[in-house]
């Protein structure tokens, strides 16, 4: 295979990773940006979405498309509900104190993992994709569903963007993000905004998981990577910048693949270099690529 097709494949694969990552990270960016909460359990919301998608798929073993569509609705709603409960019962009582919420969300992480282990089991379980077709390119074959994931994630991100910039809910969320006290003074129910934000953030992680689970099996420990990568993406993109989050996700998704392809680095070495590069970008632009510089 020539260099061109190799590059194309690296880009396609990177785009799939980036699409899923962007969705997950936008969820984290909302909770992080608006509530200033470091939610260590965000990856577990992702995991719960995937595990629930598997349960939904078991109800309709012969109709994967129906199961998929249902999962796209049910999983984010259920996970958002769990998140709202967690916010109201725990985080609110901690007054969103940063250190306390870190410990509390680590606690939640363990609770969710145990729940998945007990009710879902320790195995990695596959979910059938809603449709099966393979795109045969001249050099290699490629999963049609993966292309769909890129598209679907793009549409969902557009919806999130519309929600934040064009609706009253979005306005209220942005107002709360900029100044909590003033928002309160204007009669905004900050508690409700927080609960809603936490729910939406978790729901986005769950939706990303529903999209990814036909590619990447549900497993009770699958939440670790999305958490770490989302954090990196959110900070690298710049807090509160949707565009930055998206571009950072692309960067993270593509960087090590491109390094490996273009420079013939061994993959693990490419990952080390990519990690250090991103760290250095942050060192010299601590506010992220698209964040506002704070004086």
């Amino acid at each position: 295979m020539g260099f061109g097709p190799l590059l194309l494949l690296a880009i396609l694969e990177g785009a799939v990773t980036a699409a899923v990552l962007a969705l997950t990270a936008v969820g984290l960016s909302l909770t992080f940006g608006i509530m200033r909460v470091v939610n260590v359990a965000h990856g577990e919301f992702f995991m719960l979405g995937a595990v629930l998608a598997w349960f939904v798929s078991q109800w309709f073993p012969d109709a994967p498309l129906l199961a998929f569509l249902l999962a796209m609705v049910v999983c984010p709603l259920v996970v958002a509900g769990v998140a709202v409960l967690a916010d109201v019962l725990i985080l609110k009582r901690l007054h969103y104190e940063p250190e306390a919420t870190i410990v509390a969300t680590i606690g939640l992480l363990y609770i969710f993992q145990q729940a998945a282990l007990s009710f879902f089991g320790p195995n990695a379980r596959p979910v059938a994709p809603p449709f099966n077709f393979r795109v045969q390119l001249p050099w290699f074959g490629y999963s049609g569903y993966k292309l769909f994931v890129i598209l679907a994630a793009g549409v969902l991100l557009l919806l999130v963007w519309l929600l934040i910039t064009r609706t009253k809910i979005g306005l209220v969320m942005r107002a709360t993000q900029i100044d909590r006290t003033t928002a309160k003074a204007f009669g905004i129910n900050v508690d409700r905004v927080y609960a809603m934000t936490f729910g939406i953030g978790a729901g986005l992680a769950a939706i990303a998981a529903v999209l990814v689970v036909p590619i990447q099996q549900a497993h009770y420990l699958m939440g670790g990577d999305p958490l770490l990568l989302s954090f990196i993406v959110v900070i690298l993109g710049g807090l509160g910048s949707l565009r930055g989050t998206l571009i950072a996700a692309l960067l993270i998704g593509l960087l090590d693949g491109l390094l490996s392809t273009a420079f013939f680095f061994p993959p693990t070495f490419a990952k080390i270099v990519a990690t250090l590069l991103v760290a250095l970008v942050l060192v010299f632009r601590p506010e992220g690529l698209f964040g506002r510089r704070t004086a």
Partner: protein
Amino acid sequence: MTKGLTLTPTRRSVLAGMGAATAASFFPGYTNAQSSEPIRLGFQLHRTGIGAAYGRWYERTATAALARMNAAGGIGGRPVEILFEDDGTDPARGAEVFGKLATQSNCDLVFGALFSHVVIGTAPRAAELKVPYLVCSEGHHVASGMLNRWTLQPGITDVKSQVQAMAPFVTSNLGKKVTMIFPDFAFGHDHRDYFTAACAAQGGEVIAQIAIPPTETSFTRYFPQIPAETEVIYHVMVGPAVLTFVKELGEFYGSGARPQLFGFIDSLEAVDINSSGLEFLDGSHFWEAHPRYKQADASDAETAYRAAVGVDDNGASASDAADVATYSHMFSVWETLSVIKAGMEAAGYTGAADRQKLVEAIEAMTGFDEGEDHPQGAKTFNGKTHQAFGIQNITKVEGGKLVVAHKTSVEDGMYPDEVDYTSQSF
């Protein structure tokens, strides 16, 4: 130092009962080990963490083997009990759990660990506490000499031997130009090194080695590195992402011409071979230590073992066909327990003071016959390297089942000793 010249001649020469009594009066913690008391075996269980899929089945296998053993009169007439303790599949916790089982629960020995990092992290504790540690791993860490005299692997063949035994089948039946795909950490590196050497010895050649970073969840972009002239792809991915790996390999090649595939069943332990997306594996070959699907020529012992553990003919739970066993590895728990029984009885084991005698008794063993104690097959045991060597199976995916295509002999997997643990002091 020879076996006769140990540092505790009194305990060896004096009547066993007296020895136990003396020990008991000095160490109140050991009083449990009276001859009427049950023998207590500690089990390091991967109940949580990355090994949990194995842990569940290891626990079931151990429980079944224990029931059978107690029904047959226990060990030396004493009942046996097993204490399971979760190690979180973590080496640090593994060492702690070992201490807990050995010093708090007063277990006579500890066994059961599968994951290599847990075994390696725990082994130093075994030597410090002077408690036998019988691992069910398959890593080469025991026979390589890295560990110590208290650590033994009598229940399963190590990876170096497995790979060496199978290489001739690969090169003579599947092809001589091999591309290896493996995870870029120790387990994968073992395969890389041993198979590359074994393949060359057979006149084959490993033409590409593709190391996949351990944090990877998607694999497609590595496949273009597979050279076009590849005749066989040798894959040994492990962990929750393996199914993705196999499916993406299928998507990559599609229905067109593709190289032969040879994989380690580790990739698909606890996974149904008929899962959606795996159709592509039809006609490919796997290594299995113990064939998941019951073969036409299965022995009575094999049938009895399946029934005892609760596994159906397809290698799934007898009560839940979707619950696939880690069949190719879990026999090691059963067989290790058989070795413990034989060893304790040979050593005249009465209590903790006889732990060293137990290790020496196992070291004195030379092999195990196929039978209900060893349903996977006959094995040779090398007392110097503390390692068992058994037959390996190469199975082919045919009609949604794994069918044995070739059985290696025990001799195929023998290699020169790399250590003599019996020359080390206790």
